[in-house]
């Protein structure tokens, strides 16, 4: 194949001479007055209908209530109807859209069928200016450069460059207050003795409430606690930030299925384990639970963790295992945390290794 290229001449230039533009083709409208009038009427009709539709838009705006719905076919009472659009949205959109389409099609029809259709030939010029212009510009620039003396006076030039560069400093420094300095993510609101509660109702959970294979979305009890005046202890932005780290899932498996790592043997209660709900990949809340395999799948990027095996990653882009929260039971028989997470919750960040080291020291280096 490549040999052929080597041997063939590369013809530059055209083997066929340009025959020039073909003969002009006349349209029916150019030669037949009836056809011309018909086209004119068609176009005017489009514009007329568009006007009516736009009036219809105003009528729909004032007359259709926001709770009326339209169905294309089928009976909404049976639940098999197709459509179910908001009638307001449906009629406003259709009248406006159709009117716009008719105006557009009408104008283009006018241009195509009735406006002059003789092709015009325009000559191109090279993008560049003439050589004279170019020399003149070069002369001007060099005259300007010479007169300014920018080449001869390096002291002024360089000190100016330095000053202008320094102008960047305020611009960068002033961005400092965009936010606080990062403080790492070594702790969440979990602490020793805090109850694990249902994330919707806020009710504490007893081991007996969970059957084998069940998963419960849970949160620390502090999210539902109120101070003396009846205000929530954590609320607003602080609550959102705390939730983004402290949300957990509680699962119950058969104790014999669980392979606890060294040091984690007593982190569960009768096969009930508690893991962070925040994916270690980019922080999506995970809760797609496969009871049979004990796998937990993240709906965002499909990182899959084996909860029977200490939350290790078995598939997907996540690198770190899902952090586990050591559980116990308090005097009233409710599930509580033994401590905060011994591993960093939330997606990885540059200081993670340093922060994890701190945690390891705090928890005796077994995590």
């Amino acid at each position, binding site marked *: 194949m490549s040999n052929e290229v080597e041997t063939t001449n590369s013809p530059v230039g055209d083997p066929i001479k340009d025959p020039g533009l073909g003969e002009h083709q006349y349209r029916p409208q150019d030669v037949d007055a009836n056809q011309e009038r018909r086209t004119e009427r068609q176009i005017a009709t489009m514009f007329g209908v568009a006007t009516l539709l736009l009036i219809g838009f105003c009528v729909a705006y004032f007359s259709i209530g926001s709770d009326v719905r339209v169905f294309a076919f089928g009976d909404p009472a049976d639940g098999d109807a197709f459509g179910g659009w908001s009638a307001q949205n449906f009629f406003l959109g259709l009248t406006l859209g159709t009117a716009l389409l008719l105006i557009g099609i009408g104008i283009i029809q006018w241009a195509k069928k009735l406006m002059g259709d003789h092709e015009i030939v325009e000559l191109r010029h090279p993008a560049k200016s003439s050589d004279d212009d170019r020399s003149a510009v070069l002369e001007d620039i060099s005259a300007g450069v010479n007169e300014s003396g920018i080449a001869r006076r390096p002291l002024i030039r360089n000190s100016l460059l330095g000053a202008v560069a320094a102008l960047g400093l305020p611009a960068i420094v002033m961005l400092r207050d965009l936010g606080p300095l990062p403080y790492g993510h070594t702790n969440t609101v979990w602490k020793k003795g805090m109850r694990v509660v249902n994330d919707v109702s806020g009710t504490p959970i007893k081991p007996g409430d969970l059957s084998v294979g069940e998963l419960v*979305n849970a949160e620390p009890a502090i999210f539902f606690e109120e101070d003396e005046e009846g205000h929530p202890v954590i609320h607003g932005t602080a609550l959102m930030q705390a939730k983004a780290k402290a949300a957990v899932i509680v699962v119950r498996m058969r104790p014999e299925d669980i392979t606890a790592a060294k040091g984690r043997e007593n982190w569960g209660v009768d096969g009930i384990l508690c893991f962070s709900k925040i994916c270690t990949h980019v922080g999506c809340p995970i809760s797609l639970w496969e009871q049979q395999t004990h796998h937990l799948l993240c709906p*965002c990027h499909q990182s899959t963790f084996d909860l029977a095996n200490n939350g290790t990653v078995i598939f997907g882009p996540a690198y770190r295992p899902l952090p586990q929260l050591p559980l116990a039971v308090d005097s009233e028989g409710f599930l509580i945390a033994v401590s905060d997470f011994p591993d960093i919750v939330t997606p990885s960040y*540059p200081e993670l290794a340093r922060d994890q080291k701190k945690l390891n020291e705090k928890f005796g280096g077994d995590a």
Partner: protein
Amino acid sequence: MSKSTFTKIEESPTGKALSGPVGWLDDRLGLAGAGKKNLRKVFPEHWSFMLGEIALWSFVVILLTGVFLTLWFVPSMAEVEYKGSYLPLRGIEMSQAYSSTLKISFDIRGGLLIRQIHHWAAALFVAAMMAHMLRVFFTGAYRKPREINWLIGVGLLSIGMVAGFTGYSLPDDLLSGTGLRFVDGMVRSVPLVGSYVEFFIFGGEFPGDIIIPRLYIAHVLLIPAILLGLIGAHMLLLVYHKHTQWPGAGRTNDNVVGYPMLPVYMAKAGGFFFIVFGFIAVMGALIQINPVWAYGPYNPSEVTAGSQPDWYMGFSEGLVRLMPPLETTWFGRTWTWSVFIPGVGGLGLVFTSLALWPFIERWITGDDREHHLLERPRNAATRTALGVAAMTAYGVGWLAGGNDIIALKFHLDIFAITWILRVGFFLFPVIAFIITKRICVSLQRKDNETLTHGWETGVIDRAPSGGYSERHAALPVADQYELTSSRERLPDTDEEIHTHDAYGVRNPKFRKHRLRQKLRAWYYSGSVDKPTVEQMEHAADHLSDVDHPVELGEDFQGVSETGVPRVH
């Protein structure tokens, strides 16, 4: 404009009516000089030139509807209790951003329509930009002198995608919050400074209370201003360079043939704005997009299965899903490659290679001429094959972005799909390259065949000896010209490259030259040249030489399968 030889334009009825306002304006602005050049400027016609127009007009629709939405949208993360008319959410704590989006959707008449038009127009804006860019790529329209306009286009595409992302992050519903959570994870993965960037962007720990006001001002002021400026520059350069055109009879590299801007092109382009707007409005009426009320307010401990970004983020999302886990600890710092490489590197690679391509190609081919005639994709086989390979890689990434949906809808194993796509991301583009290149070369050969042996008329001749043969006829000259003009490559320089010169001094440019020579050989490998003048003359002789009892005639269009002559 052709001037009447008998009446001066100022004395004609139209001239009289116009001379007043035109004169008044010209006295003050002196615009007649510019108007003279541009009012009847010629624009060539082809359907593919419309793709960029779709992008332009959807941007105008976005601006119009966006202004309407700002009249009610409250870019605040302050918590309020929802009291609007959507019953399922009444009484629930949510941000003002979300509550005002619900207000626009349910309590402002036409608000939902405008919101849906705005969102659909954004999706179409990016899609039309990509289609336009593919058109420009596959026809070589980015070649000299249009490289800078190509770069502006790359800028428009990248910033257009940011515009879309900042837009759909504003309502603060569960889906948009999940998108921001992903951005948070991605920002954190930036080596060394990730945590700082994260805390500065979000004003503290995710989600903070300031990200939506910040995104809002970027979305409604900063980004549109940049887009407008770039679009203005894009159009100015288009006018200055004059539009490219397809080769054909009378259409050469030195002219531009088409209709004048006033009135034909202005009417067609102006009318097309209404069509684009109307089309999107009908979409907004009939097809639901981003029903934020169904997702609920953002809550960092909740997510819906099947969360998907807008379509143009699918590629990035897919790469993040395909990436195997990879994280290292160097110098006491954590380097999160599994997020950083696909999240930041994926689109970074796309835009860098797009921006560099015209310059790489020019370096390989050594072609420094101005090109105003478009090249058929088949005639630039390697470029076309590379483009299709890139599209394939993009498609794999995009499919991966929906791997969970695919698994669910087709009852497939998600791990298997992911593995196939992981391998496919590298393998499929290679296959696509080879196949496309072969197809292009075959089409080049077919063109040569038709040029030198004529086209098959379907007329069967029976020879006196009893043999049958199909009569071939020469292509009309206009078609011959169309197939052969603008199909060429520069001859090889034939310059010999030595590692050392005659004095034994090492040639410092040797490696560079040799690399270029190899790339050039690869770039043109397989391609066949168009017939030479001699070959075409020979073909003309041959095709007219055969003695036929019946002449086919000028208007002959061939014979259908049932033997009936086709007529024009």
